């Protein structure tokens, strides 16, 4: 199966070269294979998501989808190269809240918010906050009151400028709270810091938590709240921030973008294919495996969502000295 994929990839790469020489885009898009750049390594959640989407999109578009993994700098390297690739409608990339809304504000990103055309938001995971099971903080309110009471607490999440980092930083700023951020390279590394007692609380997308909880409900961690509108289907016992008295909505999401200036028909066709895929009940079962919620937004809505998040992130990034001048 996998070997076949590689052979297919090679054949497709050759076909792409030929297609590149062909004259302008035909009306009946797509006429050739479509590349999706995953700016993360093989095996990660983003990669699995793209590989789950690929066969469904192939079926709807009638052309092979090629996944190219180009990892580096939390997704920024792959997107920087996508930004300068040919806007012919045959190259797309997977972006996220942090790479599309925060990274362009930051120094030395290699792209700006104008570098891409938004195509479709695909899935989201609510942001969450957790403490170790032996922590004195039983609820989100306990934690907030402790910080207000002058306790110097530390926290961690997957990397500075990442979705989980920004989600918590925005929450703390909105509630006038101060806590010390200790950096980690991945969500798992941050989880190790939580369990070792090095940090007092943890910020991460909801998908971090279910694997940590045993079948009998026992766990080394306690999830205090999730920043969603309603309770999350995979953790029905965990309250929302709003229920806890601190209204806050934030999710980590993934969506398709393309280099700016691609033909409108390519955007429309791809966006429609993503929407149809997400509406397929069989596909939703597969999303369950990775604790993703289907979260389709069309091209304009997605662009608006990015702008809104960028506005929330900007003051945080400026205060941290990360924003470009």
């Amino acid at each position, binding site marked *: 199966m996998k070997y076949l994929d590689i052979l297919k990839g090679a054949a497709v790469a050759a076909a792409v070269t030929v297609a590149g020489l062909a004259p302008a885009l035909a009306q009946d898009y797509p006429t050739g294979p479509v590349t999706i750049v995953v700016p993360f390594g*093989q095996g990660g959640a983003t990669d699995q998501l793209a590989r789950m989407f690929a066969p469904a999109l192939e079926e709807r578009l009638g052309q092979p989808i090629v996944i190219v*993994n180009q*990892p580096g*700098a939390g997704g920024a390297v792959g997107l920087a190269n996508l930004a300068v690739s040919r806007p012919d409608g045959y190259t797309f990339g997977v972006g996220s809240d942090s790479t599309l809304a925060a990274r362009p504000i930051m120094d030395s990103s290699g792209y700006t918010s104008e570098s891409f055309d938004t195509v479709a938001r695909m899935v989201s995971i609510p942001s969450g906050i957790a403490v170790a099971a032996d922590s004195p903080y039983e609820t989100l309110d306990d934690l907030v009151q402790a910080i207000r009471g002058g306790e110097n607490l530390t926290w961690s999440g997957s990397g500075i400028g990442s979705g989980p980092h920004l989600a918590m930083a925005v929450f703390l700023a909105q509630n006038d709270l101060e806590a010390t951020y200790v950096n980690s390279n991945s969500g798992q590394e941050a989880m190790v810091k939580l369990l070792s007692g*090095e940090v007092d609380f943890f910020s991460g997308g909801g998908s971090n938590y279910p694997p940590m909880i045993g079948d009998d409900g026992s766990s080394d961690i306690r999830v205090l709240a999730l920043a969603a509108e309603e309770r999350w289907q995979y953790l029905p016992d965990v309250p929302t921030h709003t229920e806890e008295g601190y209204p806050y909505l934030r999710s980590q999401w993934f969506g398709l973008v393309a280099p700016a200036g691609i033909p409108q028909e390519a955007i429309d066709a791809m966006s429609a294919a993503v929407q149809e895929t997400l509406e397929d009940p069989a596909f939703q079962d597969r999303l369950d495996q990775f604790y993703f919620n289907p979260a389709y937004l069309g091209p304009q809505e997605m662009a608006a969502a990015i702008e809104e998040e960028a506005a929330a992130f900007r003051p945080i990034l400026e205060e941290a000295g990360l924003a470009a001048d």
Partner: protein
Amino acid sequence: MDLISHLAGGFAEIADPLVLLFVLIGAIVGMVFGAAPGLTATSAIVLFLPVTYAMGPTTSMALLLGIYCSGYFAGSIPAILLNTPGAPGSAATALDGYTLAMQGHGDRAIITAIVSSFVGGLFSLTLLALIAPSLARVALSFTSVEYFTFALVGIVCVAGISRGSMVKGLAAAFIGILASTVGLDPVSGVGRFLFGQPNLMGGIPTTAALIGLFAVAQMLLLSTKRRDDAEVLPAQETTPVSVVIGDLVRNKWLTLKSAAIGALIGILPGTGPSIASWVSYSDALRTAKPGDKYGKGEVKGVIACEVSNNAVTGGALVPLLTLGIPGDPVTAVLIGALMIQGFETGPFFIPQNTELFYAILLLLLVSNILMLVIGISGRKLAAKILQIPHGIMVPCILVVAGAGAFSIASNPFYLKLVIIFGLLGYLMVRFKFPTAPAVLGIVLGPILEQNLRNALTANQMDPTIFFTRPISLVTLMFMCLLLWAWLKPTKQKKGKATDAEMSG
């Protein structure tokens, strides 16, 4: 009780003809690469890494661990027959091995090397099975403070690898650390040394640096070198394996001690088979009995080196699987191999992937057995690899290296990096700077930096935290002990080098 069911699970994982086939392929590849001078187990693993992308985790580990075990051993074949160690770890073996070959006992030396490697491998495997699961549990209580001191010991050990010139070893390590600072600052997120090149945001991938420093540099060196004809050895008498086993049994304490030294050195982050074989060789010298003729064809010399350099394999996997810190350059590549399969090494690895962990243990066992069988049956053939003309070998390896570099991240930019690091590696080897410390510098640099900064941030910038946490304090004291042990003999030999070393 638990162990048995886990082992059974592991068996189920590896009881697949494809998996076993790949261990075999790995063992043969390791044998070839180890025996060819200039090619090492490390370069073999780097070159074959891209092949594993499409495999499952068990198959991929099967191939890589097969290369790992037999590659570490095979370097001793050219060391014994040609006085040219196939890998740095076999340099010490040449001392007695080559002398034995000149006396017509080359076959005995090779069989001794094979059997000793097997014993060393088994010893370290047992150690890994016994301590890794419990260490993983302990590791969950480690914080940035401990990780920083471990990495610091690693850097100190790196300096120790480079016997002869500790200064050059340290310089090479610092070149690696410098290269590791390229990319987004891991703590503040600001870009460093990007030169307007977005591809550098992700930093320099260890694999690209490894391919450049090891494979490309060595090929450049080979292509400038004229072929040396092997000195003519006397006809070699064949030795039955039973004689060699008798040797080992007679020297059981030496064997055990060398195995322990090898495994412990493997556990230390940053050290590898080179230092292990030198340390146990010098220890064997220290405890030599009257009548031993070390350096003039002493079988015990071969035993000490070979037992310990293969005992490194299991030991080096301990910090990799429990802390996510590589024990030697090869395990640094294994981190990447596991990551591609979706596994993150660290304290969660064993609890969450128990089956895979036991499969890895069994694969190591199988690799060691295969190494023994292939080594004994194919030892004459392996010597032939030395005769492949450079004109064929160099271009082949370079093509594979290029393909490997591209496939790290389907990014053509990394090809440029590999060329740059190849030239750098060539210059380093020409001017006798060891390249292994540079690679470990790239791996350990970020661990040092991030954990130092995190430890201080989390503790209100209070540096005393490194002395008040017990494990960290013990580690630092151990480091001082190592430094003392390494610097003392050098001081006696030549006093004027001392200043430079103290400041380094």
